[in-house]
């Protein structure tokens, strides 16, 4: 299966959502396809509908083990999210960006990657980071203000997430350009949001990737909101995926709350990248169910009634419904997995509490490979201050 940029499919209905700021869910695709967006003919890949049904002939044929793995990863991501929120409210965590409701995007986009591939996350990506091998303990340190939380684990080829919106995208493309030059059959997934897509750096990145035929997958996680700014104030285009076509990047719009669609789209894009067919843009349509960050109060700018329909589109619930129908899960198994994940998160929290250690004497240590006389002198001055204050 491949993404055919010349495929013609019937246009979907125009969304009439510009007034409300609401992102409507993508419609059900009439046939299983990952065909690319044709401007004016926006199609959207959905495999698993909101009720957890997969139409006859659309089952992508993943193994039971693959399905249960991604299910568990989604449940774990949500358990982590929920615990982090509690920890933040109890004063144990810094400002933190929840990603509840976006678990299918999270896991689906990194699911086909190997250890030799790279992932460049935005800051609402921790589910994906956990999948990639970042320990939850490390991610807790990151959000709690410990420098070491930003350091990729030794065997993980990932960028640390970017705070500056879209700034992670050009280096991700550069890494893919290096892969092509080094003749490696690997790829890079870079994740960014609908707000980031307004950044010039992201536009430049799509162009560089296209011109260089770089093996990179752009995943635009369109969750409808950039803090208080709805998609309708971010863009006048119907679908962010059509932007890829302007750069000659095959592009697809995917139901981002459908884990099967995300897995298929990312797998196909990764296959293209590894086969030397260059970049792909995936617009994953989802919804920011919760806060921008814990410092945010969406009731100021968003009618919470807008969120309600998305409760029914919960990526975990619909996937579970399907897995139950296939006999892979039952209610008891779901409860057990949820409890396991919560226990895993609590164990990570305990490890975090045990090992988190502020290291004020390290602030000069990682600036340069070859440090400078100027810095060494400032370090000596700083150490005298720490000594005076009795700080280790």
């Amino acid at each position: 299966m491949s993404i055919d940029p010349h495929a013609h499919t019937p246009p979907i209905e125009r969304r009439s959502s510009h007034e409300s700021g609401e992102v409507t869910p993508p419609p059900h695709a009439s046939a299983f396809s990952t065909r690319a967006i044709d401007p004016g003919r926006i199609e959207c890949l959905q495999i698993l509908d909101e009720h957890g049904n997969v139409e006859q002939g659309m089952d992508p044929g993943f193994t039971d083990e693959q399905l249960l793995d991604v299910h568990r990863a989604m449940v774990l991501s949500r358990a982590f999210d929920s615990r982090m929120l509690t920890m933040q409210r109890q004063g144990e965590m810094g400002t933190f960006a929840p990603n509840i409701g976006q678990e299918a995007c999270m896991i689906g986009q990194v699911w086909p990657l190997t250890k030799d591939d790279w992932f460049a996350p935005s800051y609402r990506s921790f589910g994906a980071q956990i999948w990639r091998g970042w320990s939850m303990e490390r991610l807790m340190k990151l959000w709690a203000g410990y420098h070491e939380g930003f350091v990729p684990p030794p065997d993980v080829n990932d960028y640390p997430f970017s705070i500056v919106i879209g700034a992670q995208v050009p280096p991700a493309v550069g890494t893919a350009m290096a892969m092509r030059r080094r003749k490696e059959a690997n790829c890079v997934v870079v994740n960014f949001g609908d707000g980031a897509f307004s950044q010039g750096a992201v536009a430049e990145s799509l162009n560089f990737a296209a011109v260089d035929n770089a093996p990179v997958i752009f995943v635009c996680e369109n969750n409808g909101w950039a803090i208080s700014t709805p998609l309708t104030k971010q863009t006048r285009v119907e679908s962010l995926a059509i932007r890829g076509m302007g750069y000659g990047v095959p592009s697809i719009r995917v139901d981002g709350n459908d884990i099967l669609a995300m897995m298929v789209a990312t797998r196909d894009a990764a296959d293209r990248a590894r086969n030397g067919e260059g970049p792909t843009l995936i617009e994953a349509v989802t919804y920011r169910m919760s806060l921008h960050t814990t410092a945010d109060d969406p009731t100021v700018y968003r009618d919470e009634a807008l969120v309600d329909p998305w409760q029914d589109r919960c990526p975990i619930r619909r996937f579970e419904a399907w897995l139950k129908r296939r006999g892979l899960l039952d209610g008891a198994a779901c409860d057990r997995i949820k409890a396991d994940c919560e226990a895993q998160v609590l164990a990570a929290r305990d490890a975090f509490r045990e090992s988190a250690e502020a290291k004020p004497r390290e602030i000069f240590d990682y600036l340069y490979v070859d440090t400078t006389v100027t810095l060494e002198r400032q370090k000596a001055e700083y150490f005298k201050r720490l000594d005076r204050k009795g700080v280790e």
Partner: protein
Amino acid sequence: MAQLTMVEALNKALDEALREDERVCLMGQDIGVNGGVFRVTKDLQSTHGTDRVMDTPLAECGIIGTAVGMAVHGMRPVAEIQFSGFTMQAFDQIEQNMARLHNRTQGRYTVSMVMRTPFGGGIRAVEHHSESREAYWVHTPGLKCVIPSGPRNARALLRAAIECDDPVIFYEPKAVYRAFREEVPDTPETIELGQAEVFRTGSDVTLVTYGAMVRPVKEAAEDLADEHGIDAECIDLLTVSPMDTDTVTESVRRTGRCIIVHEGHRTCGVGAEVAARVTEDAFEHLVAPVRRITGFDVPFPYFQVEQHALPEADDIIEAVRDAMTWD
């Protein structure tokens, strides 16, 4: 030994680096067939191929950002920004990634790359083609900033910058590009980054400068000796970050006077930092206030008047004579 211009010497350094280290690649606008708008990369694409000498899309942020990503994945990109006035579009990636990624990942990733760009006035160029904004890079933790002044040190410093594991801004004084020739050895040579050079010894006053201003300083020093019996010591910083002010303060302890000359804006410029450090480290030796002869805090003037705004030898001579009689 060959007599080379700075442009030819830089080309030689890039060619050598491409030959010796397969990780090195060049990227930038018009650097391929065209050889760069100043011809610094002339013929390098035909020798080393389009994947190693890349003509990029016209997007500075993209050039620097992708160069960072290549460096993180084991290459050593040398990215050219056509004029330093256009580096502002790349500021985002310089600040967020080029300067920070090594620190952010506690050394897990290094960003061994060079951003080359021509800077400075004096070539009658249109707006945004004559800026000297080295202070931005000096002020950004994580970067190193190197500024050659002649063909020979340009070649040696560029080789050192490419070999450096840290990200380097390599600021090329374009007024010097073809201004004169110098003997450049056939065998490779490097100059240690962060090391200033005393290019004239003297006992009465210390003149500190770099880049294209080395020439008016040299001219002033010769005139001061010949016409006024004043013996000036002249220092070329060569690297402005990290800044070797030990060489400066050691000199000022002997001369008691310090004058700094550069094209860049005065306020919070390199001269301000040199003056501060001289005051901190050699205050008791000063017999006259530290002076700065610099570009003014105005946008670089349009070229019909630029010759009046750039520091020249007479300004330096006047400042030195004032310092000699100050009490």
